[in-house]
């Protein structure tokens, strides 16, 4: 089955991004397809390469980048939400792309299920 994923909160502050990572990992393990992960609202803050958490904790940005690298998962950051919050190409981590909200609506249309993680 095809899943679209929407992440509405930034890393660490809320569990949303962690839960989305767990869901995506479980879905891939079960052979499902992730058509797109879309980052909206504070979710855009998951995409900065400068995130550098303590070494004894998880690195959420790197976990997302690894999913893109290893499984080809498309990570789209909403441009309007990103501009408000200071996310642009200069800070973007590997595997993330900035694009428009149409990509979220398209994911809603093309995926069998859209699953939203947020606050």
């Amino acid at each position, binding site marked *: 089955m095809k899943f679209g994923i929407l992440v509405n909160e930034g890393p660490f502050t809320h*569990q*949303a991004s962690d839960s989305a990572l767990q*869901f995506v990992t*479980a879905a891939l393990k079960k052979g*499902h397809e992730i058509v797109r992960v879309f980052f909206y609202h504070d979710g855009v803050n998951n995409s900065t390469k400068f995130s550098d958490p303590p070494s004894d904790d998880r690195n959420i940005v790197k976990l997302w980048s690894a999913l893109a690298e290893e499984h080809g998962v498309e990570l789209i950051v909403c441009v309007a939400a990103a501009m408000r919050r200071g996310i642009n190409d200069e800070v973007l981590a590997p595997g993330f792309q900035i694009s428009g909200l149409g990509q979220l609506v398209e994911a809603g249309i093309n995926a069998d299920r859209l699953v939203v993680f947020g606050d």
Partner: protein
Amino acid sequence: MKMLHVVNKSPFEKSSLSSCLRVAKNDSGILLIEDGVFGALQGTSVTDEIAGRSADFKIYVLGPDLAARGLSEKPIIDGIEIIDYEGFVDLAVEHGAVNSWL
């Protein structure tokens, strides 16, 4: 097709679960995740509200979120099923749409 409602907020702190119970169609699935898992506990101030509707819905709770909060051994409301992330994926497949009560 039945809908899966996902509630991630503590029922002690926020009204999300009450709103979900008010508006979700009977026979829907309700999955408690993150701080929403508190809603699955026996013997709390909100147990009656949730247990009173447990015949109307199929209620699930995410085990890893219970364990993180030290609640794995606590008694759970009768009829609530504990699942893991793969179970969450299965529920999303089995229901027609997923509605997250953010």
